[in-house]
């Protein structure tokens, strides 16, 4: 599975949706993921890829990590995974 598919699978599970219902343009709000759901998703993604995501729940918009929609999250993860190697 590609990074994108794996991230979408995690987000879909959190949102209790099918992966096909999660599009790159979806925002977490569209998907019904609240703040607790967001930190749980970040945890699951960190576990999946063995990376550390620079995300502070106190100021989500100030973090270096863009969570404005699914595509932005995927792009951020791809960058972190690439940096890891």
């Amino acid at each position, binding site marked *: 599975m590609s990074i994108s598919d794996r991230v979408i699978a995690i987000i879909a599970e959190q949102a*209790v949706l099918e992966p096909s219902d999660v599009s790159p343009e979806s925002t977490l709000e569209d998907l019904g993921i609240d703040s*607790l759901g967001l*930190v*749980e998703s*970040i*945890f699951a993604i*960190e*576990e999946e890829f063995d990376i*550390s995501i620079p995300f502070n729940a106190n100021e989500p918009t100030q973090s270096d990590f863009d969570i404005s929609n699914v595509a932005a999250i995927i792009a951020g993860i791809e960058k972190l995974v690439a940096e890891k190697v």
Partner: protein
Amino acid sequence: MKRVVITGAGTINALGHSVPETLEAMREGRCGIGELEFRDVERLAIRIGGQVRGFEAEGRFNRQQMSLYDRFTQFTLTATKEAIEQSGLEFHGELSAKSGVVLGTAGGGVSTWDENYRSVYEEGKNRVHPFVVPKLMNNAAASHVSMEHNLKGPSFTVSTACASSNHAMAQAFSMVRSGMAPVMITGGSESMLCFGGVKAWEGLRVMSKDACRPFSANRNGMVQGEGAGVFVFEEYEHARARGAEILCEVSGFAMSSDASDIVMPSKQGAARAMAGALADARINPGEVGYINAHGTGTAANDKTECAAVADVFGPHADSLMISSTKSMHGHLIGGTGAVELLACIMALRDGVIAPTIGYEEPDPECALDVVPNVAREARVDVALSNAFAFGGLNAVLALRKV
């Protein structure tokens, strides 16, 4: 001052997953203590306990709930559902705004601490699940009960080791009696039966390796249990007006502090709590027919408790019945007073006194009628429930037949 009655009861413990199952086991003098089953149990010297068996969180709770509910919260919610269903109450409007939850627990989410320490120390992981804190906090159970049942009044958690539930129920009682709340959900819960939870108790060297035999001369220590007991405390006129079934009346309580030793019990502290509960409830000592003892099965507690009963009741101590149901369900630590209150309800409502099982040899220092091994039928109008915690913090509730 308002009168306070119990209109709902729920439990899960080693004797059963409901109040009827638990009371049946108590009537039959059945023992719920057995071999412990969990990871690394082979590294423990103490391998018995009153473990809840056949309880699967899957199916009862959804995935999101499971990630937030420690086992002690799962037990609490299960017992609360039974209690509130029995009461027939639904919380809306004014009733919802004024009614709250006060629960006891000594350790809160002990297995959550245990699992996550294991993960970061033993397995060397550097990341834990984001809900570790909301899952392990001592007030998690009270908060989830408030959310699940729409209880918006005074809600908090009391933690006084082995007296937590009794202190919690005393608070709930005070709030209903004073008119602050028409209904309070109260009781307690504990789930320490995991490697770290039992290992910590093992360190004290007060645990039995074979059985809990309160008051018996050959007793050799306490046995841990787990589970929850939850009750609906309701203002009497409120309950009557809606035709609710009343299980018994809570008529008074007292709390005392030994102010002497962190682990050794004090006869004076225990006696002051019992005498105080009688005075608060305006009960003549001679009216008390049954005492649900703290009765841990340790050398120190049982003889101290019996001496305190003798002091408070004088010659009447020889005619009342006192039993310890810890012999059957184990010591539920912060949840113990709540499960033991069920034995008081059974005595008052059904006229059946739960026995002290495992009783083998009389101890001259515990020379009271401990209802050895077999339950007994007897009419009881007034019962006391004792809880004496480490730290010397005591809480006794007085209950009356309605």
